[in-house]
């Protein structure tokens, strides 16, 4: 990750002479419509600092991850793409199309082998010889594996790439498959969510650029800094949960007071994500703050853990802030599904008590 070698360095390693390098710079200047005077300046830049190349591929998906990425407020995406990295391939944003787009991919593979970050939005379908998703006349799966081969690290954007997401929900007719099942030999950083929070996406990339390493990951391959705790653990409505104050129906008195949405099906207690801390769209809000429970969109198989409005009591989950995904995964925590129900009952008692107290004080 820490490699900062320049374009010229790569040329040298490949046995290319200074003379050929200068020629390349001249051709580059010409192909950009610039005069020959620009060639030495391109050469100078290439000999010094380079921006890390990023290849962003799209499989079966809905493009919500790209849309989320451009929502980033810190850093701004305009700064990301102009100054911080070199987004050499993105079907959503790139100027070139068709052959010229494919050429950009091949050039990166050739010139930056082992140096670029591969960012994957969506996943490959395996049914129908992979032809449920075709890019350049070939299965997306082939493009994905070809580009993974030369990547130094792979980012799995969103729940599609990380977990399969909606097209992999039962019965998964295309056999849409998360990317770690088809890329076995590269570090994969999973950033689940449908989509992930913009500042989480850019945060992960800038962490890698700034510190020259992959951020610490949990057992499931997610950065601990953003996915280490459940939404419930840091939810600002948690005191209402603890006090047994729940919304009982949409738009009821308790909803208007901002009470806990657990009984409305909120998945906050079982969902690892940064929504209740980083929040969404420059910190404006997050689902629970806007009155709807969390649907658990960063969790594996969340589409098949519905219906969304059925409360969580059936789902076995630990109930301690300290229990991160690693510990749960290691089976360190006993099944405590009943704990939620017990807690709810206790909370109801507490609420009854506080209601009668309130009545008295009035």
């Amino acid at each position, binding site marked *: 990750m820490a490699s900062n070698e320049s374009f010229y360095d790569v040329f040298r390693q490949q046995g290319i002479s200074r003379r050929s390098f200068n020629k390349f710079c001249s051709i580059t200047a010409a192909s950009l419509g610039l005069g020959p005077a620009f060639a030495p300046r*391109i050469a100078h830049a290439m000999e010094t600092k380079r921006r890390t190349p990023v290849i962003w591929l799209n499989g079966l998906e809905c493009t919500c991850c790209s*849309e989320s990425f451009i929502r980033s407020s810190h850093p701004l995406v305009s700064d990301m793409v102009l100054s911080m990295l070199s987004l050499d391939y993105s079907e959503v944003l*790139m100027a070139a199309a068709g052959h010229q787009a494919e050429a950009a991919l091949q050039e990166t593979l050739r010139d930056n082998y082992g140096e670029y970050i591969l960012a994957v939005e969506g996943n490959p379908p395996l049914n129908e010889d992979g032809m449920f998703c075709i890019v350049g006349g070939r299965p997306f799966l082939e493009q994905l594996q070809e580009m993974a081969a030369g990547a130094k690290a792979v980012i799995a954007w969103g729940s599609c790439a990380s977990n399969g997401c909606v097209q992999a929900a039962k019965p998964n007719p295309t056999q849409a498959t998360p990317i770690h099942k088809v890329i076995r030999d590269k570090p994969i950083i999973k950033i689940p969510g449908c989509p992930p929070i913009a500042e989480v996406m850019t945060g992960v990339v800038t962490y890698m650029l700034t510190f020259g390493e992959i951020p610490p990951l949990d057992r499931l391959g997610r950065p601990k800094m953003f996915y280490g705790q459940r939404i419930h653990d840091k939810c600002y409505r948690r005191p209402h949960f603890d006090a047994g104050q729940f919304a009982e129906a949409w738009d009821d008195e308790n909803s*208007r007071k901002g009470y806990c949405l657990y009984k409305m099906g909120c998945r906050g207690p079982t969902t690892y994500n940064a929504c209740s801390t980083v929040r969404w769209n420059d910190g404006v809000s997050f689902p629970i703050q806007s009155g709807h429970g969390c649907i658990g969109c960063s969790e594996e198989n969340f589409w098949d853990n519905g219906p969304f409005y059925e409360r969580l009591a059936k789902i076995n989950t630990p109930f301690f802030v300290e229990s991160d995904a690693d510990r749960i995964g290691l089976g360190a925590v006993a099944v405590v599904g009943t704990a939620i129900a017990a807690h709810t009952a206790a909370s109801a008692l507490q609420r009854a008590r506080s209601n009668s107290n309130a009545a008295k004080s009035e």
Partner: protein
Amino acid sequence: MITETPNGFSLDDSGQRIVVDPVTRIEGHLRIEVNIDENNVIRNAVSTGTMWRGLEVILKGRDPRDAWAFTQRICGVCTGTHALTSVRTVEDALNIQIPENANTIRNIMQMALYTHDHLVHFYHLHALDWVDVVSSLSADPKATSELAQSISDWPKSSPGYFRDLQTRLKKFVESGQLGLFRNGYWGNPAYKLPPEANLMAVAHYLEALDFQKEIVKIHTVFGGKNPHPNWLVGGVPCPINVADTGAVGAINIERLNLVKRIIDESRQFVEQVYLPDLMAIASFYKDWTYGGGLSSTNVLSYGDIPDNANDYSAGNLLLPRGAIINGNLNEVHDVDLRNPEEIQEFVSHSWYNYPNQDAGLHPWDGVTDPHFELGPNTRGTRTNIESIDESARYSWIKSPRWNGNAMEVGPLARYIIGYASNNPEFKEPVEKVLTDLNLPVSALFSTLGRTAARGLECAWAAEKMQYFYNKLITNIRNGDLATANVSLWEPHTWPHEAKGVGFTEAPRGALGHWIHIKDKRIENYQAVVPTTWNAGPRDAQGNIGAYEAALLNTPVANAEQPLEILRTIHSFDPCLACSTHIMSPDGEVLANVKVR
């Protein structure tokens, strides 16, 4: 071979074949192939949707109240519009009436989507078809400033501002790492803007990239996040509490103030940046009159934006509804989404099987059974297609038809129908643009007409956000705080069986969902989406769709560079995940590929 299509186009596939795959700056995966004649004019066009996810089969057997979340994931670009269509569909089936505030908030969210989506489309998905980034490096910043100030009051217009930006761009280009601009068609003779106009447009490309993230905060306030905010059958999930205890956890005066500020800024950006840029760019491309396709003959809109809650009749919809066929602007036909004869989907040239391959099916009776099979004249192999055989099946998109007619949908369709209906909100802005550019009405039926209609509609939508914001405030002032009707929330209140249809006008055009609920569960769910209308393949009779029609007869300056093809295809704002989401009813597993 020359073929005359029943809908009036002449196809000739004898010339050089050009393949564009992937088509970029769109949502999803699309392939375009054309044949050009000896004068580099497009004489045959083939549109192939190259992805299929199948959400409708996944919906089968699920809780209808969850359907909005699944269908919302059909598309993350027009995020929310499928969810809105879905809750309307379920409400129609179960006869649920929603509160006025819920309707108003939904309209504000839908108009926020329009404003955002159209703006991002123009600058980030379409502008580079008209704007030469490299040319902007040779612009004079002072002259750029004069140009900018001559067309708008937008404050970021000083010579220093443009000089700084140009310096940054030069530094970027000199780095040799062109990133998103790599391998673009810079210097292509089809680019007509002077360097100063290019520099101004690039500046606004970057400003719009920074600004667009503000617009969606309206979704975040009411729906908790964007992309993919939350919705609710029976209303909206956000309660209103303006002044009482706990108001901080609901829609309160601080939240409303945030929405108001964003509406103000959005209107300003659209009026002072987007529209002036659009007019300035259009003025240099007035002679480029190609790309009309079906727009001069057949256009369709379902209408949207119900002024008052629960009334989806044409008279209550602020976006116009209707169909025009055979170019007769004097007659706007009514559209009935329930009529089994009107809207039908065909699969003669799509990778699906029907019980009767050449018959159409209404969405309530829709079948989606995938069958990937290439025609005998395909060049390449099953998994390495060099060129497609359009005489056989050639797309993952179906071909929807209205009374048997291929139709164009989208902003231009809406504006033509509004114009033909003599609706002043649509007719007057169109006439003003035509007058300002000194163009005849026929100029509307073109690639640029599509692009211009989208810009006008963006301004319309931003203004309507203000209208519905005022309506919300008035309603709250009158003491109405209701945002959800839960009387039919519990499944035991539902009938044993029910059918419903819901519609919106998505930013890209007419969108309909059809549901069949049985025993509290989804029995069948079908969506017919805008890009299916526009990008669909030929039908059994050989009628071509809107994309294919629009590409015909366009000259290409450089056959190696598909600039003109991109221009016209982008003017539709393609959304392929939308168009190809359809599901196999039984989800059968076909041939498997081994996972290594």
